[in-house]
């Protein structure tokens, strides 16, 4: 009696493990899904109304690694759901671009695979060449500058920002305005990056910006690494990965990060921390993220509708509401569809940022991987 029960329980556990290991793969694809999966524009499906109808029928959209406090994504997701009644699953909100690519590869054919991606540029390029992305052109395609999109529409810039210096105005009485300032003895034990530059894109960009300030260029990131090495030696640099929590607790009184994340932190922490944000005068570095539709999206119509939404005036202003600079900003200023109050709230920028090519970025990453820990450790 007892034994047979153990046996049954054992077999049951094996079956349960086997099923979870395989995951739930469902092949609920209908004719309209197939049509949506290959649609290169809303017109291919018979216009926006047809796209909306197909997306509503799917009823769900799987997004991945979209933090609610990042570039206005919290509101964008809520408003999309409100507008179209499509439920959004946000998987792994604090993940990375590589996590997104892994998810596309590993969850292929499953219901919970990501439909759309928000990728760093090199990841978008590598995913496109691995045929993981479906070509799609949103209705406002012409408003995206040519240099900021793939001609086939496999990826296109969505929003970006500048590397900026944030500081706690209560602790820091003489604020830094440049990278050169950060070396001052006043800032001992106070300067932080947003993470490990061999892993976090924002920290990598911070080092790139410092390099530009210190005589480096798109081909040479080493002066930035050396700069942080000196900051470490003088005790100014603290290797604490800055977050809103470390800002609030006062651990990272000066933080180098994307301006949209810093202004967002300032807004969230209003009344607790007097967080101010400046774009450094000596190292101007901007970067854009990219939207892409997964080639194996389980909800192809909803995926395409999400892109249409993000590139509508409402969606682009939604990024602006998260203090990120939307890619169609210039066109929106021309058409008068941009929200001026939101635009005026952004840190002021003067000068031009270089946009390193993929080859230059790859070279810089190799240099960082080889030298960061050696120089700064």
């Amino acid at each position, binding site marked *: 009696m007892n*034994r047979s029960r*153990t*046996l049954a*329980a*054992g*077999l049951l*556990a*094996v079956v349960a*493990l*086997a099923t979870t*290991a395989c995951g739930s793969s469902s092949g609920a694809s209908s004719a309209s899904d197939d049509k949506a999966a290959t649609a290169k524009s809303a017109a291919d499906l018979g216009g926006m109304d047809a796209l909306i109808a197909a997306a509503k029928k799917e009823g769900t959209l799987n997004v991945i690694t979209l933090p609610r406090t990042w570039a206005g994504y919290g509101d964008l997701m809520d408003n999309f759901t409100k507008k179209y009644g499509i439920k959004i699953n946000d998987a792994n909100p604090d*993940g*990375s*671009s*590589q*996590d997104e690519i*892994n998810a596309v590869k590993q969850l292929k054919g499953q219901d919970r695979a990501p439909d759309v991606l928000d990728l*760093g540029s*090199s*990841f978008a*390029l*590598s995913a496109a060449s*691995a045929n993981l992305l479906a070509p799609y052109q949103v209705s406002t395609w012409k408003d995206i500058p040519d240099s900021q999109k793939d001609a086939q529409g496999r990826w296109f810039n969505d929003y970006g920002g500048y590397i900026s210096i944030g500081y706690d105005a209560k602790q820091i009485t003489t604020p830094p305005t440049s990278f050169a300032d950060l070396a001052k003895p006043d800032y001992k*034990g106070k300067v932080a*990056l947003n*993470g*490990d*530059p*061999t*892993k*976090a*894109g*924002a920290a*990598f960009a911070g080092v790139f910006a410092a390099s530009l300030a210190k005589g480096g260029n798109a081909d040479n990131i080493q002066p930035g690494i050396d700069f942080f090495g000196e900051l*470490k030696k003088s005790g100014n640099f*603290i*290797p*604490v*990965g800055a977050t809103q929590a470390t800002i609030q*607790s*006062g*651990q990272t009184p000066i933080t180098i990060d994307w301006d949209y994340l810093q202004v967002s932190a300032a807004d969230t922490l209003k009344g607790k921390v007097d967080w101010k944000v400046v774009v450094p005068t000596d190292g101007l570095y901007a970067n854009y993220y990219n939207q892409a539709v997964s080639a194996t999206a389980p909800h192809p119509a909803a995926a395409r509708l999400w892109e249409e939404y993000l590139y509508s005036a409402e969606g682009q202003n939604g990024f602006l509401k998260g203090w990120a600079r939307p890619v169609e900003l210039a066109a929106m200023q021309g058409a008068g569809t941009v929200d001026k109050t939101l635009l005026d709230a952004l840190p002021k920028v003067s000068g031009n940022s270089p946009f390193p090519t993929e080859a230059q970025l*790859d070279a810089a*990453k190799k240099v*960082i*991987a*080889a*030298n*960061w*820990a*050696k120089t*700064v*450790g």
Partner: protein
Amino acid sequence: MAEQKVRRRLDLLGLLPFLAYVAVFLGVPTISVVVGAFQDDAGGWTLGNIGAAAGDPYLHAFVVSTEISALTAVIGAVVGLAIAFAVSASPPGGALRQVVSTASGVLAYFAGVPLAFAFIAAIGSQGLVTKWLGSAGLDISGFSLFGFAGITLVYLYFQIPLMVLVIFPALEGLRPQWQEAASNLGASRWQYWRLVGGPLLLPPFLGALMLLFANAFAAYATAAALTNGIIPLVPIQIAAVMSGNVAVGQENLGNALGLGMILIVGLALAGYAWMQRRTSRWLR
């Protein structure tokens, strides 16, 4: 007879859930790491990843990881042994014994991000203890929690209790009668430890050292939360290539680094198991 055989087979069947668990959560991932380590992005076979993992800067990471694991294992083992020794001399069933064994059981598994943040909150630059000592005129802000010394300190927080847990049974197994017999035969205390106690304790001590080494080598979250990449440990490098926003298309280099870790940790654990077997001969 026949019934016994059947019974034994049925008992083996009861082991199935565990075996399935091991296969799914240990076997399959290990195989995929090993296979991936020898593949390029397109799926072809290559030794390139192994070559990259064995070269600069990743070789350096293996060296640093080994250094920090060995250092914390040795300090942890020595201090842990001393504590366990002191406690084993206390009366059995006493309060000290209970407190130390309970605390060790809990603290040995207090690791990862919570541990890192506990230390940052206590002795980080804005930490409670730092501020408190500062107001009392003692400045410890010169000590960097975010470097080699900091990691060593934090690792010891779980290494020492683990050592106490692992070595305590061996100390308990040393029968008082052996020492009595030795002194009856005219041995001094020193002679007893040199000729009887020491040789008996050596295998479990070395085994525990291996276990502590493997424990530190595989630790990731604590170091990642504390150092943010300025100390190049192997697990941190793996995270950077496997799930980062910077490196592209280097998943298989991550697999190769993982293979290196599996080999090193596997060797250490094999050493532990071997020493355990020797110990169990006299420890019953």
